């Protein structure tokens, strides 16, 4: 980028900012509920300052160079905050693209006499801004992924409670999809709890599992076998009709596993195995 243009952009910084703000405020997708106008302006100003100060004749091709790192840092910060605040990708993209528009507009107004220079400089500006957009998007998506990862971790942590329903009977309601990592956690928790409580029956309730494919079924069989090796019995309950259909269609053999339709029937079966009886007390008064 030539010295002239650089100087020109420096001089016109105020104009660019105003134009950019105007563009942003005119945008229909402006999210006043997520970010205030003042905040938006200070964000924009910060970005423009660092962008224009870092423009030099050599570095516009190479975003990896150290001179760009402050700009990228600011942009990355903005993108991550936006990802956490719940901005859509389009809104985040428009944030950068409207800056490009503003700069191009200013260039067009200022360089009126020399079309060739205008074209050259515009191309360069385009290139830089496109690169910056890519960086923004990368960071934005990274921010989103971090949110998702954190949520996944939380779900795994809270979603495998082992409940002691009776002396010697454990229940483990599974909610959500079973993958290898989760099965491992479920299995470890269950086996540990069996050792600690000395329970001889474990009920695995899968009414909260949306779908059972061959992999999930294999995980279930593994858990049941491991429980059996520990010397406890494992019952699978809460199998919905659709799941029964899929299991049979996939040709999975669950015949050597005790399966019950509901948690209640599994509990009833456990009582029978443990030779317990639940009785209704007669309500006839003694008087």
């Amino acid at each position, binding site marked *: 980028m030539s010295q002239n243009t650089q100087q020109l952009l420096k001089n016109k910084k105020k104009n660019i900012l105003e134009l950019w703000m105007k563009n942003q405020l005119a945008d229909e997708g402006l999210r006043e509920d997520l970010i205030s106008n003042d905040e938006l302006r200070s964000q924009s100003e910060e970005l423009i300052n660092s962008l224009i100060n870092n423009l030099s004749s050599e570095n516009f091709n190479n975003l990896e160079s150290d001179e760009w790192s402050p700009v990228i840092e600011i942009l990355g910060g903005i993108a991550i905050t936006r990802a956490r605040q719940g901005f859509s990708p389009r809104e985040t993209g428009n944030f950068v693209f409207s800056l490009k528009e503003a700069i191009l507009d200013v260039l067009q107004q200022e360089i009126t006499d020399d079309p060739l220079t205008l074209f050259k400089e515009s191309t360069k500006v385009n290139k830089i801004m496109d690169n910056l957009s890519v960086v923004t998007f990368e960071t934005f998506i990274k921010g989103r992924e971090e949110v998702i990862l954190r949520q996944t971790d939380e779900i795994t942590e809270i979603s495998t409670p082992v409940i002691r329903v009776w002396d010697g009977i454990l229940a483990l309601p599974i909610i959500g999809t079973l993958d290898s990592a989760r099965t*491992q956690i479920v*299995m*470890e928790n269950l*086996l*540990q709890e*069996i*050792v600690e409580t*000395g*329970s*001889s029956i474990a009920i695995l309730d899968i009414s909260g599992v949306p779908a059972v494919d061959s992999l999930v079924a294999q995980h279930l069989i*593994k858990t049941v*076998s*491991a*429980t*059996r*090796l*520990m*010397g*406890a019995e494992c019952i699978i309950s809460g199998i919905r009709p659709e799941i029964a259909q899929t299991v049979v269609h996939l040709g999975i053999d669950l015949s050597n596993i005790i399966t019950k339709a509901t948690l209640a029937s599994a509990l009833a079966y456990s009582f029978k195995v443990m030779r317990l009886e639940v009785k209704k007390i007669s309500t006839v008064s003694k008087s």
Partner: protein
Amino acid sequence: MDKIPILRMGAYLLVTIQVDLYDRLALNLEADLVQMVNKTSAKGVLIDISAVSIVDSFMGRIIGNIASMSKILDAETVVVGMQPAVAITLIELGLPLKGVHTALDMEKGMNLLKSMIDSTEDDADEDQTADDLITE
């Protein structure tokens, strides 16, 4: 040479493995145990592996072998006190130890053995009476 003691208690044999098994030790145990079952005509074998923290596929197979061999010699095998980590390892190795009975601890294992042997004896008695009836 280390040896794992095999204790006799009535009609049962007790094996408590207190050390981590290595291959030679396991093979010796297998041989000794089958000999003992034969000599004492035991009805049940109880193997306590609560102190075993490491297993491999070989050990899994030995345990399975012991169970099958005892079965042929008319003795039931119950493995008690398996650690969670050991159970998970065996499953991941694809060794669900079919044909081996398991129990959580010694007490439950003993009860299981008793109930199994009682029921087989009951069957034998019933067979006896049925035979008697036929002869009469």
